[in-house]
Every structure is written in C-alpha cells, then in structure tokens.
C-alpha cells in the first residue's frame, strides 16, 4: 500500500500482447506483485512499489516504466 502513499499511481506497464509469460520478472519482484498464469499476466497494483526491477529484468523489453501512470 505504501506505493499509493508515495506516488498515488501504478507506473509499471506490461505490454501483454508482447509478453512471453516466462516468469523472469516474477522471480525478481520483491513484493510478489506479479500474477502470471499460462498466458495471462498482470500487476497486483496494491502491492507494487514501482521499483522498476521487473522493467530491467524482462529479457524482451515488454515491461515499461510509464511516468504518466497506468490505468488499472
């Protein structure tokens, strides 16, 4: 919840159509904030702290830091 206190919005955007569902980002997320099914992925926005680690670890660049905030 402290994400909301800090920025008030989720700034991490997964380009779902381009995701390979590999789980790399899930393995590094310190907050367990990424839900990944067989072919479905989303961020649990109440847990995400916008730390950007998932952005850096995605091997195929499909997670973006979106300064404007993401609609969820």
């Amino acid at each position: 919840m402290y994400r909301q206190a800090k920025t008030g919005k989720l700034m991490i955007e997964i380009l779902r159509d381009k995701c390979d569902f590999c789980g790399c980002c899930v393995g590094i997320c310190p907050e367990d904030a990424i839900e990944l099914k067989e072919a479905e992925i989303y961020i649990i926005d109440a847990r995400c702290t916008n730390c950007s680690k998932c952005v850096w670890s995605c091997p195929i660049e499909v997670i973006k830091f979106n300064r404007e905030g993401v609609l969820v």
Partner: protein
Amino acid sequence: MKTNYDIIVVGAGPAGSIAARYAAEQGVSVLILEKDRDVGYPVRCGEAISKAGVEEFIPSDEKWIAAHIEKFSLNSPDGTEAIVEFEDAGYVLERRIFDYALAKTAANAGAEILTRAYVNGLIIEDNKVAGVKYEYRGEPKEVKAKIVIGADGVESRIGRWAGLKTFVHFRDMECCAQVTAAQINLDPNTLYFYFGEEYAPGGYFWAFPKGMNTANIGLGVSGMVGKQRSALSYLNNFMTKRYPDAPVLTSIAGGVPSTVTLEKISAPGIMLVGDAARQVNPLSGGGIASGMIGGSIAGRIAGESIKLNKPDHVLTYDKAWHDRLGKRHETFERIKNGIYNFSDDKFNKIAHSFNKVPKDKRSLGRLFTTALINQPSLLVDIAKVFVI
C-alpha cells in the same frame, strides 16, 4: 481425483516430476498440479546436459536426444577458439519429449497429474502448510495435503506464500532470450560458447546444435546489464550479423536464477525443489540435472516423512541437499563472480594461453586454471571441484 493427498507437487518440470516419482515410489499418494496445458511445453531452455546427469534418473533414449555432444568450443571476443574435449558425454535434449518422459515415470510410480491447474494460494492450518488453492479451467478449487513441494520454477511463489524468502536479486538473475533456428552450420557434436562485451556482458552467449542444422542460439545477461540493454537486443545483433536469413522455428524468453541455493528450502509442510529452490549451477546456468537431484532428495524425504508419520523429517532436506550439491554451488558461485567480470582483453589472453597448452591436456579444469591464474584463492576453489 481425491480431495486429500499425502503430497502435492506444484509444477511438472524435471524437478517436480522427479520429486513426485521418488515420493510415489514409497507408496504414498501424490498429486502434481501444472498450470500449462502440456507438460514440457513451452520449452525455455538451451537443453544441454551431461549423460551422467540424465542417467541417474532415466536411461538414455534417442527419442529425446537431439544431439550427442563431444566437445566444447569457447570463443573469446577477438574470435580465438579454444576447444575442450568433453570428459563425459553430453546431450542436447528435446525437452518437450524429455519432460514428458519424466512425468510418465512419475505417473507410472503412482503419481496423479492435473494440467491446466494454476495454483494461486496455500491452505495454512496451525501455522503449517496444509494444502493448496488453485484455479482449474476458471474455477476456484482446493485440495489438501500433508506436504506441498514447490517445483514452480523461476517464479517460486509457492515458497513465498509459505514464508520462505525466494525472490532473486535482479543482479543474480540471468535474463535470457533464445531462438531455435534452422540452416545453422555448426559442428553437430559441439557446444559453442561466446564471451565478451559484444555477446553477453556478465554472462555468455551459446549455440547448441539440435540436429539437421538447427540450433538453440541464445544468451543470458544479468538484470544489472538489462538496466541498459536487453537480452533480446544482443540476440538480434548476433543473428543479424551471423545468420540474417536463418528461419526461426521458436523464440523464447526466460530467467535463470544464477546464484546459491536459498537459505531455507524447507519449513513445516513445505519443500522447494529445482529452480524454485534456486538449485541451478550458478557457473553454467544449468538446472536440469541439479533440479532432478534436488527433486529426488526432497521426494524421498517427503515420502519417508509420511510413512514414519514424522512431520519434522522434512526439515532434514536442507542439509541433505547442501551435502550433495549445495556446497559445491557455493564454490561455483565464487568462480563465477571471478570470471564473469573479465574484460574482453582478459578473455582474449586466456584463450591465447590456453591454446598453448598441449592438446591432450586441454581440460575444462585447465581452462579455469588458466583463467584465474592471478587469483590464487579461486584456484583453490577450482581444485576442489575439478580434478586438475
């Protein structure tokens, strides 16, 4: 399907299937839950393994062997090639068939398997894991168990929900991109590795032949590198330069937790195996064989714990793993930290001096010795793991 099992295994990769088999062989009831619709697919792997690593668990079978490996080719940034004969024989697997074969051995031992079952929570009773919640074809379900084995791969969320610290520092995650491409003319019995800034800083680039001029071509870079540049861009760069017209049959992403095993891989009612426990060899990034070894130890101990009705017995798993491989991985981790930060110049020099070693003495151990000649403390580590 029952509503209650002795043991539930989450994930039907190599580690999960072997854990299930070793548990089921002791006559306890075992259920494997796998989120994908197919065991073994999609394949996120270079598929290289030693023959010994396979045969500890399943007799070799041409059905899932794509290539037989006899040599390593290690390429430094200036293009110098160092060839090392493989002391043991090796394979490049066809993992979609291999993983399936492993799951069959678990099923034949008595384990039940349910695919398309996405585990999304644990049942906790009296501070102890007592089963799992899962989604099956869109419907929420629950099933109880005395022991849950998390074999859920790189994600490793099952362990987190049980209170184990499983997430990997992004520096220690090798972020990978790979294609399986055709019309690749490489020696069909050699594994190719490429080192240096251009290929994969802080990691390595590979090309593993898979028969009929196809190959798995890919790389892993630390999440630290990913901050600047993604694995995919390195891969695209390599393919454009060397194989611009190669037809691409598959392309995948993946993460390899390349570090030592988690501090704790068991707690009351829960055990972790394979990538979920971070049991990958941190030097090579290979995790098929070590995951199966972890799975076999956990499966055996879980089965014993049920038979003896001794819940605390699961806690002996940590030490059993550490003695068998965990300790060795700590040494590999030190060697890795010693070499993955080498400059291009250093890689070149190593290749040049290695090629001066008489042919019959060019072993992997000798190569690492050459690489680390100025770091005597690491040489002691190497002496411990390779017979030089």
